[in-house]
């Protein structure tokens, strides 16, 4: 027996069909070619049930979600030194204490976020926490700040990676921006292929950097203990000081604010809890702890070596980063281990951007599901990835890199404001959570989050104040703008839902409005015959409308029409200015006006006879007027448009 459905569908229950991959395949050769190319670039489409395998183990998740946080150790030290150099040798001596203070803050934040992972296993980070505890506005502020930070993460990490390459190979300086944009494009494609592949791509380089950086610190510390130390020279300072400032509390606070970028990315694990293998919360909390310890070790270690080797960032045509100079000191400039270290650092920084490629689309999808983002952001592509979020992030991040010419330092002031705003909102939300839920041990957890909230609030204020003129103002402006946009989108969706709502306690009656059919006719042909026959199936009130500038020709058509369609009225509309669309739509308006005002307006069904093109080039020759008419009528009140296609092989 025949099984006609079998090629495209499979019965999975009573009256329930499941589409096979063949059902989604394009039917035209061009479409099939495009699908094939897409499959080569992004991989074969994955079915929903294949998602189970997309969960991440702790090791893989550490690589994916922590690469941003860990990689910030590559530029955080440099940001501290850049500020303190303005205060001279005495100020530079404070680099290590400042980095230790930041590491302590990291400890507080990491411990606080562990509580978030445990309390909110569905992920979403500060957005979920603030939504559950404070409501709409606070959660949207948190979401806006997060989205900005995720975008900046991609731009900053990529720019910094390019700077590491330039430090090792100065000759590529002229194409630095191109390299950055190319890397973002590759990351975008990699992520569109799906999370599991992303994990495999990114796990190895993260661990390579971790190994290399820890080895560098150990060897460097041994060198320092062995007496290999240097002191900053007056000449060296003079070269780097664009201006001179006295050592003041403000200078130290600015250094602290700049170095606080080391904490960026700490939230990513809390946001991505659902991507972990079960038990999700526990695994995420453990990974967060490991990440905190590793980051603190790297950050303090690199700062310690930078101070002891008297390293300052070099600003010339080809920049040399602090971490590159530390590595050059430990391994020897131009040595193979130095190049390897730079390669691992650059690779990690490129891949750190992937933290955002995992987190941004997830958050955008959550926002879309809550009605604050366009719905396309919650649709998953062929590879189970939130394609729209990935593409949007890639485009915005690339634009940022181009806009700042690939200079990490220019982006840093924008960076920390949103991060600490998020931390504060999230921790404040957790305080309310514990006060409301009061599970066993809530006082201890409350204390952790309260300390985190106060600490991050203070830092948020400091960072915003000292970085305001450097660019923080932009973020302060963008956050309320995004909140406004998201509320606008939400209002639109809410209105639409209200308009489309159907009460579930009523039986839907049959149609009660009158219907009339209007067929624009270009003459009498098989397509028109088919359209008239379709119209006859709808109801008795049918009229053909022939718009012409040749009324005599129209009368001839009428004679033929009355002979061949005796029960269907033909209306001739003379159009002395040769227009078609305007007179036709005006005729519909007149029909509406003629309808008795006390009766409910009828539904006007405009039936368009359409000749189906056999070749792509045929499409240019036929149906152009129908297309324009359709575009004009879409959205017209009480109007339905029906295409009746006529195929030549019928």
């Amino acid at each position, binding site marked *: *027996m025949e099984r006609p459905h079998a090629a495209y569908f499979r*019965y999975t229950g009573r009256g329930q069909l499941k589409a096979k991959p063949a059902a989604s395949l394009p039917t035209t050769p061009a479409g099939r070619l495009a699908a094939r190319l897409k499959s080569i670039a992004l991989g074969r489409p994955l079915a929903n049930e294949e998602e189970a395998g997309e969960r991440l183990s702790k090791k893989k998740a550490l690589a994916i979600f922590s690469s941003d946080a860990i990689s910030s150790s590559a530029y955080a030290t440099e940001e501290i030194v850049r500020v303190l150099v303005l205060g001279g040798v005495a100020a530079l001596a404070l680099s290590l204490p400042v980095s230790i203070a930041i590491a302590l803050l990291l400890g507080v934040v990491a411990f606080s976020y562990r509580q978030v992972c445990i309390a909110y296993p569905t992920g979403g980070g500060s957005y979920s926490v603030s939504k559950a505890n404070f409501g709409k506005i606070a959660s949207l502020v948190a979401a806006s700040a997060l989205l900005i930070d995720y975008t900046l993460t991609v731009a900053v990490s990529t720019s910094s990676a390019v700077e590491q390459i330039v430090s090792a190979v100065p000759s590529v300086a002229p194409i630095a921006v191109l390299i950055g944009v190319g890397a973002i494009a590759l990351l975008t494609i990699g992520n569109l292929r799906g999370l599991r592949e992303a994990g495999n791509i990114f796990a190895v380089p993260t661990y390579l950097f971790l190994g290399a950086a820890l080895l560098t610190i150990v060897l460097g510390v041994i060198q320092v203990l062995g007496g290999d130390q240097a002191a900053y020279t007056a000449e060296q300072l003079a070269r780097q000081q664009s201006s001179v400032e006295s050592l003041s509390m403000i200078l130290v606070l600015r250094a602290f604010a700049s170095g606080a970028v080391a904490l960026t990315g700490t939230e990513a694990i809390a946001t991505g809890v659902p991507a972990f293998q079960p038990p999700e919360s526990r695994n995420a909390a453990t990974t967060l702890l490991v990440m905190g310890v590793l980051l603190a070790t790297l950050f303090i270690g690199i700062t310690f070596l930078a101070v002891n080797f008297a390293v300052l960032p070099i600003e010339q045509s080809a920049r040399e980063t602090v971490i590159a100079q530390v590595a050059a000191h430990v391994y020897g400039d131009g040595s193979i281990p130095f190049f390897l270290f730079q390669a691992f650092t650059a690779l990690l920084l490129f891949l750190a951007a992937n933290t955002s490629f995992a987190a941004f689309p997830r958050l955008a999808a959550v926002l879309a599901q809550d009605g604050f983002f366009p719905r396309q952001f919650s649709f998953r592509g062929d590879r189970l990835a939130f394609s729209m979020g990935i593409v949007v992030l890639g485009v915005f991040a690339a634009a940022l890199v181009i806009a700042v010419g690939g200079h990490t330092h220019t982006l840093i002031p924008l960076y920390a404001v949103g991060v600490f705003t998020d931390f504060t909102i999230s921790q404040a939300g957790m305080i309310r959570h514990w006060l409301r839920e009061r599970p066993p041990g809530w006082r201890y957890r409350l204390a952790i989050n309260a300390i985190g909230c106060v600490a991050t609030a203070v830092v948020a204020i400091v960072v915003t104040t000292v970085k305001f003129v450097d660019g923080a103002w932009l973020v302060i402006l963008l956050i309320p703008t995004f909140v406004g946009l998201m509320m606008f989108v939400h209002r639109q969706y809410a209105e639409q839902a209200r308009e489309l709502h159907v009460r579930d306690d009523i039986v839907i009656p049959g149609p009660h409005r009158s219907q009339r059919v209007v067929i624009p006719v270009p003459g009498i042909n098989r397509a028109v015959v088919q359209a008239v026959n379709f119209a006859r199936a709808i109801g008795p009130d049918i009229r053909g409308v022939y718009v012409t500038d040749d009324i005599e020709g129209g009368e001839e058509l009428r004679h033929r029409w009355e002979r061949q369609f005796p029960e269907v009225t033909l209306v001739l509309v003379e159009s002395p200015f040769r227009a078609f669309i305007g007179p036709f739509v005006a005729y519909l308006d007149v029909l509406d006006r003629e309808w008795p005002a006390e009766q409910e307006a009828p539904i006007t069904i405009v039936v368009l006879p359409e000749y189906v093109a056999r070749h792509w080039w045929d499409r240019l020759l036929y149906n152009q007027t129908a297309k324009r008419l359709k575009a004009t009528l879409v959205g017209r009140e009480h109007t339905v448009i029906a295409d009746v296609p006529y195929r030549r092989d019928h």
Partner: protein
Amino acid sequence: MLAVNGGPTDRQIVRLACDLAKPWKSEIVAVHVVEIDWTLPLDADVAGRSEEAQRVLDFAEAVAEESKYRVQVVLLQARDVGAALVDEASERNADLVVLGLPYRTRFGGDFEIGRTIPYVLKNTQCSVWVVRQAMLEGSP
């Protein structure tokens, strides 16, 4: 060749067949026979229109896919299931016929084997395996 009927043993026999066939890359054919009673002509369009019959074969296909193997599925209609299975096995030169047997007892407690399996056992030329469903708890 597998005889599937939408019963509780279908999943088991499809998996078993896939496991057996994989090393040898053997062909598996899952056959479902819809019995047509004598009031209708044999070529009446019954099985093709039966969602239930299609679902039985789709399920076999899906189980095979889970086992990362392909089965060919065939929908037949016949006056007698046993005879149709025997004919199909002979026509396809099947090496093995696998049938599932639900554990059922008739009134009075005797084990019920039905009439299809004895017929196939008696008349099929190739080997026949019968996979009986595990006894339910509390069964004798």
